[in-house]
């Protein structure tokens, strides 16, 4: 069993209530926090090795360190709770089961960076998480964990929920900022980075829900305790949203360093119905697929998965069995990205649409023999070419699907039909 930092309270159905959370040891980090110099909190978080769980895996402490110290502008925290990456549902679990842990994390980050206002940008469809979170915020204000002079510390913090309106691109940090500002969610070119010019043109930290929810542990137990978990560069534990063809899909916490497939098998009971494993998408729909072979031979941490040609992303693991059609999977994800592109950059706007149209015709049995190569030719022009990485987020998996499962594509084209069409579970992704 893995160490539980994030999911420790998931089994307690009442942990979302302040009184219960307090009884479970909640908010006890604050006493220590307010006695610590903010700069050394940032140092501690840097030393803990905590990395962002929103997708990019960037060091949380380093990001905070980029925020200018000597500024007379207000600073903001944007909590990324948009959870738009297909396959990802772990932030939802935190917000529903343990919302106060997130609030505690928000207080820690805000105190360390000198932030007075935090916005939690929640995916609009997340009605239950929003209600739970608002309930928790109200309780926290009532008990003096938020608002003016928190617990007599002299530190003030306001927290607001901002509901998204259903755009994946508003999960990208600068798209998110534009959206909170009331504008169309379109990523900004970088530089400048949000740490310097972010929300309302002020210094801003953007962190994922899960990232922040690790902070109470780091303060309570010390950065050494956190850094002792995991591997050399991938510290701590991570929440994995496991879906697809497994016996028991769900959110599972796991310390880094175990074998990827063994973890999936132990946690979920393995491939549904004892069918053969075809492949594993390890980090959300944006990550390249691993073949069954690769999944069995990869260690679960950022570096090993990168070495295997994929990425850990948001920790959304999708399992494909022999019954799933890879061409269909490409059709589904390409349609998603072609629909969610904000439309600023020609490579993304036109490229995702082009790939989606080609994927669709292959899946419909109308593909041309040149189609797989056309996809391979177009994909590189979507990579590293655009304002944000949404274009890469289709190009990388698309390329991997075609490269690793070329036979399936050719078969669709040759037989002019989808060989899996009769299979009820032909797609994992919809």
């Amino acid at each position, binding site marked *: 069993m893995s160490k539980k930092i994030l999911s420790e309270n998931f089994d307690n159905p009442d942990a979302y209530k302040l009184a219960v959370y307090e009884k479970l040891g909640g908010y006890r980090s604050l006493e220590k926090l307010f006695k610590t110099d903010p700069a050394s909190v940032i140092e501690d978080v840097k030393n803990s090795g905590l990395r962002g769980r929103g997708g990019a895996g960037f060091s949380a402490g380093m990001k905070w360190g980029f925020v200018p110290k000597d500024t007379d502008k207000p600073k903001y925290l944007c909590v990324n709770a948009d959870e738009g990456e297909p396959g990802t549902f772990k932030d939802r679990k935190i917000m529903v089961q343990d919302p106060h842990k997130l609030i505690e994390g928000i207080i820690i980050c805000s105190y360390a960076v000198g932030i007075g206002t935090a916005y939690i940008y929640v995916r609009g469809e997340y009605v239950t998480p929003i209600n739970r979170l608002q309930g928790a915020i109200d309780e926290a204000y009532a008990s003096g964990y938020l608002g003016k002079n928190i617990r007599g510390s002299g530190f003030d913090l306001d927290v607001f929920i901002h509901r998204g309106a259903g755009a994946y691109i508003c999960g990208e940090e600068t798209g998110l900022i534009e959206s909170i500002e009331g504008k*169309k969610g379109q990523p900004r070119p970088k530089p400048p980075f949000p740490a310097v010019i972010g929300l309302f043109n002020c210094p801003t930290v953007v962190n994922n829900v899960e990232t922040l929810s690790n902070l109470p542990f780091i303060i309570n137990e010390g950065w050494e305790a956190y850094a002792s978990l995991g591997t050399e560069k991938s510290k701590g534990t991570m929440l994995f949203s496991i879906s697809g063809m497994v016996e028991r899909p769900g959110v599972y916490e796991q310390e880094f360093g175990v074998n990827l497939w063994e973890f999936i098998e132990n946690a979920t009971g393995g491939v549904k119905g004892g069918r053969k494993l075809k492949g594993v998408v390890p980090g959300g729909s944006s990550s390249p697929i691993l073949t069954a072979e690769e999944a069995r031979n990869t260690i679960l941490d950022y570096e090993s998965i990168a070495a295997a040609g994929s990425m850990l992303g948001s920790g959304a693991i999708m399992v494909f069995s022999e019954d799933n059609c890879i061409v269909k999977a490409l059709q589904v994800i390409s349609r998603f990205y072609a629909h969610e*592109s904000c*439309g600023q*950059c*020609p*490579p993304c*706007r036109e490229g995702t649409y082009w790939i989606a149209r080609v994927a669709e015709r292959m899946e419909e049995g109308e593909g041309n023999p040149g189609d797989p190569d056309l996809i391979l030719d177009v994909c590189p022009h979507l990579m590293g070419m655009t304002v944000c990485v949404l274009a890469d987020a289709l190009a990388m998996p698309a390329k991997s699907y075609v490269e690793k499962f070329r036979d399936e594509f050719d078969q669709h084209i040759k037989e002019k039909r989808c060989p899996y069409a009769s299979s009820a579970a032909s797609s994992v992704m919809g």
Partner: protein
Amino acid sequence: MSIKITADGKTIETEEGRQLIDVLNENGFGIPHFCYHPGLGPDGNCRMCQVEIITPRGPLMTISCNAKVTDGMEVVTNSERVKAARAAVEEFLLLNHPLDCPICDKAGECTLQNYYMDHDQKDSRQEFKRFKKSKAIDIGPTLILDQERCVLCDRCVRFLRDWAGDEQLYIAGRAHEAFLTTFPGKEVTSPYSLNTVDLCPVGALTSKDFRFSTPTWFLKRTPSVCTTCSRGCSIRIDVDARDNKVKRLRPRHNPHVNGYWMCDEGRLNYKFVNTDRVGACVVTRNGERIETSTENAMAELRSIFNAGADVGTSEGSKNKAEAAKKIFVLASATCTLEEMFAARVLAASVAEASPYVVRHVPDGVEDHLLRKSDRHPNVKGAELLGIPVVDFTTDVAAGGIDEAVPGGSVLLAVGFDYEIQETLEKFCKQFSKIVMIAARESNLTRMAHVLVPGLTFAEKEGLIVNFEGHIQKLSPALDGLWDKTPPWQVIAEITESITGESRFDGIAGLRKAIGQEAAFSGVDLNVLGPTGIRLKTPNV
């Protein structure tokens, strides 16, 4: 701070903190770009301007519009990777483009079209039906929008928001369905709307005025100055080489005056050039207007100004001098510096008086960007020449001229090219004879006894001084049609015919003479350069 960068091995000296794309383009690297514009700044959406910057970790593809130069920066603009990126962006933009170049007004000056030749030149790989959007949408009094041609560069949106201060366009929708549009039920009504047509890299926004008028390759472009208000924006006059008519005015970059922009009113103020022209000299005899040759008209002028003179007798000379003193000179504040100066010389040497420069066009709207309420381009020029400026735009009697006009006086009126208002008309009626140099017929020319054709801004050479004391030069854009003597020369010839003295050696000599004036000291008016010269002490 002065720094050095290298681009494709070439060393460039520049200033710290400038946009890389500007530095590269000023040095001839021709970095392609759709969304960047030096007047709008970077937006980073089109991805066409990518170059490689050499970093310790190897070459990094980056957009040059959003990068600032730093000392020692090493840039590659011609690698295979850069070329592939440009070709890719061009291919993406053309995938669902309607390709209606043969009927597009932008053809010939379209960035998308030009870059296809420069960076792509491949056959289309589009096998699907092109995505449809709306075409030929009427979005306001000045503009037509074609959404299919739009490359979504956001320039028009940013211009209206950041400069015009009227956010009247936006990009709605997302992904390939994104489209440029107005806000529901609203039109683009900005007084600067037509700048969006210049900014639009493609034919998505076209000018109702220019639409379908001239294929752009027939246009002859002449740098000049707008004379609609006292700002004097630098412009280009575009003349159709086929019919020698002005078809379009567009702003010309001048950091000292107008930046990259001009207002719609000035831009559309060229049609008068082609209407109601005074085509030949006219003399009026017994109430009848008779067209005549320039020689005959000049002879008529001499006889008017020398009335009563009996050459050879002392009585005759005295009469001549008396008659000459009764010449009263009014020049429009739309006249050039040369015309005003020639008028001053005439009035001084013949009538021992000063001319008046007249404001006669009613004030217009003034705003935060360019427009000045004073609709005369050269009031400042008159002030600098020490000529009193009188105002006939209000109902103040005689425009404020308090000097009584002696009975039997002759009026010489120069440059009144539009209908004049009642007060001015009344003032002019008291003269026994009216002599005019005017480009266009008006209620004033209909009262003239002798009328000599003038030239509009599109046909003449001359200097004007804007309200800030910035001198710029008008250049003749139309040729052949009006090979008339320029107004300043007509005035000089009248002076010469009375005084017997020739004063100026061509327009260069005239400018030299103006240069002797204290207000213009230290400025060579014969070498102004394309953006003009700012007088150091414009308030004399």
